[in-house]
Structures are given as C-alpha cells and as structure tokens.
C-alpha cells in the first residue's frame, strides 16, 4: 500500500470539496462533552534512525522458536518448512491474501485453492473441503453453526473438556446469541470416556465435538464416539492434527461428519496471534451448508478446463440473512502454503514426518519418566504431544528452562486450574536426538534447584 499524504494543502482541498471551512467546523456536530480537549497521549515522532533502533530493540526481546529449542505445542508447532513453500508462495502472482471480487479473473489462485481442497479431501478422507477459514478456533465455531444449519431442531452441543480451551472459548462467543446450549464433558482420564458420552448424549444432541489427538496429546476413542453419534442422529465433529494423519486413521474412515483443523503445521510459521489457517471438510450431503468459499472445476466456452467459485448463491454476500455463516474471506496465502507443503511431502513424506514426531515424542517421554518426581499425567496412547506432571508448580521450572534456552512446554494451569503442576510438551521432526537428550538433562537441573 502506498503512503498517503495528509498535508495542510490536502486538508484544505478536501474541506473545500465538501464545503466546510475548517476541521473545527467539520467536527462541530460532535457534542462538546464527548470531545477530547487535549492532544492524544502518544510520544513525539522518532527520526528514521531512532525508529529503526527502537524496532530492532523490540524485535531483540523476542525469543522465537529459532532462538531457543522449541517443545511448545497446543495448536502451534515447530514443524519443518521446506524452502519450496516460500519459493512458490512468495511469487508476486500469489502474494496477496485476497482474491479479487471478480474471483474468476484470478485463475491461478483459484486453481491453487482447488488443489488445496483436493489435497485436504485426500488427507482427511472427507468428500468436500472449503478453501479455508481463519484458524482452528474459528473453524470449530463455524462447524457448530454449520451443524445448526443442518439440524435446526436440535440445540444441545456436547464438547469434550480435552478440546483446545481457546477453541471452546471461540465457540462460546460465536453461539452466545443462538438457541444452542453448550455442555462440556469432563475428561479426568485425559480423553472422553465413551461411557460418559453415552450418558450425556440424547435425542436433543445436535453434535459432539472431540479433538483427536486432543489438547493433552492423548488419542480419543473416535470410533466409539462416532457410533454413539450415529445411533442418536447427532453430528460428529472432529478437530484433527493434519500431521497425525500420516499414521492415524482419517476422519472420513471413522465416520466424522465435519472435520476441522488448525493448518499452521502445514508449511506455516509459528506466529504469535496468527494469521493461521482454518481447515474444514465435510461429507457431501452437507455441501450446501459448508461456510466460506468453494472452488469448482468446469470448462469455459472454448471447452478448456477452468475454475470458478461455486455454490456462490448461498454465500452471505448474496443472501446475508439466510446464510449459515457470515465468514467473508479466507486464508488464501496460508491455504496455498499448505497445498505446496502437502504436495512437496507427498503421502510418503507425510508418513515419515508423522513417524518421526511419534518416535521422538515417545523417546522424550521415556527420558522424562525416568526423572525422579516426574511422571506422565495420563496413561493413554499419544502422538507427538504428551502431558507430564511435575512435583511442584510448573511455571517456575519452565522459567528456569527458558533461561537455559528451551521453550520447554505449555503450563496447563492457565486453562485447567487443577493442573497447575502439569505441562504439555510437543516434539516435532525438527528436534534432534542431541537436543532431546540435552533437554532431559536440563529438566533434571531445573527441577533440582
């Protein structure tokens, strides 16, 4: 975006154009009692030299995943990003988050989204994928709005306590003014026990939401959950980890109706506050209820293959009050990165990546288990993330580990007050054997003090 000047001459020209004498006169309609009668409390402008120094100082106080060894997870992971992702996504033809309003003018972008949708369908085993939502949290919330559009006579939403707590907050916000009630099902053993779900699910249940692997890293009993949903006519919504599908069953295989995910792990860097990538896929019978954009393939008048935005007649900008969702845009650039990442890895690369995560996470868990006073919080199978229990409060130990150069894990007390002593630790394929061994040793030191 170019720099827009606002000189006194510009101001004069603008005021003349609208027939007002001064800025004071322009604002005279604003009641006196609400007007700010002093300058804004901001520091005076810096020179360019000063500004660059200031920004460098701010940047220097960051401790990124490249500065320290990163074992953080909880939805954002330090996976390897092949150089080809930046090379393709950085091309100027692609380098914008927006498709123009006449989307069909951008055939290259539409083809990329179409391929992204195809890859997500292949990955998840679902029939239809949209061309992305904002992030995992908004994707989860949108999945419930979508379920509400499918079954408007049911109002009970069941969500496992092991679903990402921030995704559940996003969901609460989205449905606050809808005739839906949200019931959180406790997961004291680190997963939703199907017996507990059996007691809670009834003919009023709109949908059941689980995350698999869940926020604690544990696997859920997705097949049992799926059967219980099927028996009650409730929709089964699953939040999955895309990388895990290199070795775990696909949502389509265990009967998910709507599958959503945070797509950061697919070629997108860890960024505080995003932007991230919301993945959403569903079964074909729900295609008219899926929010956001769908790209379809067709032929032009000369019989050549081309791409269009399809099912547009249902979108909110055409039928605002009837649309199930008011999502207006997508994460085109991040969807493109995910498409390039998945294409570069291929099925075999994804399987190898998933397997490395699995092996390395289990190797670290074994090391941690040997540390006196430390144990695994849950006796459940896990993928690349697991929850450890420390002898005392997690915060202090994590601070000491940060000083030693490790983003050591996520303290779970922030979301689960009874888990003040618990930390979730994620291990990606990027972590080396040496790093993991040194990390275990650092834990012993940090706990000994």
């Amino acid at each position: 975006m170019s720099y827009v000047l606002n000189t006194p001459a510009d101001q004069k020209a603008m005021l003349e154009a609208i027939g007002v004498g001064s800025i004071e006169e322009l604002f005279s309609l604003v009641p006196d009692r609400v007007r700010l009668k002093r300058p804004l409390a901001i520091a005076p402008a810096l020179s360019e030299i000063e500004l660059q120094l200031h920004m460098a100082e701010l940047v220097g106080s960051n401790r990124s995943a490249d500065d320290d060894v990163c074992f953080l997870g909880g939805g954002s992971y330090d996976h390897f990003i092949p150089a080809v992702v930046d090379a393709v996504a950085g091309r100027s033809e692609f380098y914008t988050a927006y498709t123009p309003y006449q989307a069909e003018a951008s055939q290259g972008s539409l083809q990329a989204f179409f391929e992204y949708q195809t890859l997500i369908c292949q990955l998840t085993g679902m029939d239809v994928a949209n061309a992305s939502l904002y992030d995992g949290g908004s994707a989860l919330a949108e999945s419930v709005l979508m379920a509400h559009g499918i079954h408007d006579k049911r109002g009970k939403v069941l969500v496992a306590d092991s679903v990402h707590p921030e995704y559940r907050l996003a969901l609460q916000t989205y449905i606050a003014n809808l005739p839906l009630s949200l019931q959180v099902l406790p997961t004291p053993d680190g997963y939703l026990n199907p017996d507990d779900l059996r007691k809670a699910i009834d003919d009023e249940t709109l949908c059941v939401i689980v995350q698999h692997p869940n926020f604690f890293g544990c696997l859920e009993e997705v097949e049992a959950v799926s059967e219980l949903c099927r028996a009650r006519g409730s929709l089964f919504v699953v939040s999955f980890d895309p990388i895990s599908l290199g070795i775990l069953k696909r949502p389509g295989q265990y009967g998910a109706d709507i599958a959503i995910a945070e797509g950061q792990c697919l070629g997108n860097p860890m960024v505080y506050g995003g932007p991230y990538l919301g993945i959403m896929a569903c079964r074909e019978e729900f295609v008219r209820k899926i929010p956001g954009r769908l790209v379809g393939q067709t032929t032009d008048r000369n019989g050549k293959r081309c791409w269009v935005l399809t099912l547009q007649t249902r979108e909110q900008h055409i039928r605002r009050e009837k649309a199930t969702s008011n999502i207006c845009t997508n994460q085109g650039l991040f969807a493109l990165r995910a498409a390039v990442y998945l294409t570069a890895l291929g099925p075999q690369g994804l399987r190898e990546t998933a397997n490395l995560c699995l092996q390395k996470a289990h190797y670290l868990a074994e090391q941690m288990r040997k540390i006196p006073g430390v144990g695994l919080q849950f006796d459940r199978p896990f993928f690349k993330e697991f929850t450890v229990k420390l002898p005392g409060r997690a915060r202090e130990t994590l601070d000491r580990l940060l000083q030693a150069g490790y983003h050591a894990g996520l303290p779970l007390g922030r979301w689960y007050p009874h888990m003040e002593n618990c930390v979730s630790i994620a291990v990606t394929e990027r972590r080396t054997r040496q790093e993991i061994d040194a990390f275990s040793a650092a834990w012993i030191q940090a706990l000994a003090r």
Partner: protein
Amino acid sequence: MDLKKLRFAPTHEWALMEGDTCTVGITQFAVEQLTDVVYIELPDVGDNVFAGDSFGEIESVKAVSDLYSPVNGEVIAINTALVNDPTPVSKDPYGKGWMIKIKAEPGSKLDKMMTQEQYEKQISSGG
C-alpha cells in the same frame, strides 16, 4: 391440471385447496425464470408453516429463492422425490413438481391470491 382451479401468489407459488388440504408448488413462469433448478430444500412433515413466511428454498444455477406458504397450517406431506432430483419441478410444475401439502388452519382461504387470469396479467406486465 386445470389451472383455473389454482390460485397464484405474486411470488410465483401456486396453491390448490381441496377440503382443508392445500398443495403448493411454483409456476411455469417461475421455472422459466430460474432456468436450471439444481436443489430444493423442503420442510419436514409436522412442521408448522405460516402464510407469507418461507417454507423452503429453491436453488438454480442463477439464484437461491425462498418459497412462501400461502396459508397457516401444518405440513402433512412433502414431495421427497424432488430432494434427490428436482427435474420434475422444471418438467411438470403443476403436476409431479408439487412441493408440499399443508393441512390448513380452519377457515383458511385463498381469496387474496390471484386467479390464473390475474396472474397472467401480472407476468405479462413484467412482474
């Protein structure tokens, strides 16, 4: 179908009252305007519908339009065949393309709707 027996809405639905049962569909003119119909969403049997309120949707390659009920009442039948394949709506809008049957509230009348003659006058004047 004898079109003289039907009554017509400005929104291009037709209605046929037999006893207290009101059958509803859309007109030949509406079908021609919509071009290729691709999808129809109908209410469930047992749902209540209200005169002037939407009871469903029809989607063509050009637009999605609401379908409006001519009377208050309860849906007693829907043409389930249309949900899988909406072609009968285009091919035979007054016959196999019927959409729903409503058990109308006692005293419901179609007095305010147009006769065939009035409706044809409306559409020929561009409506």
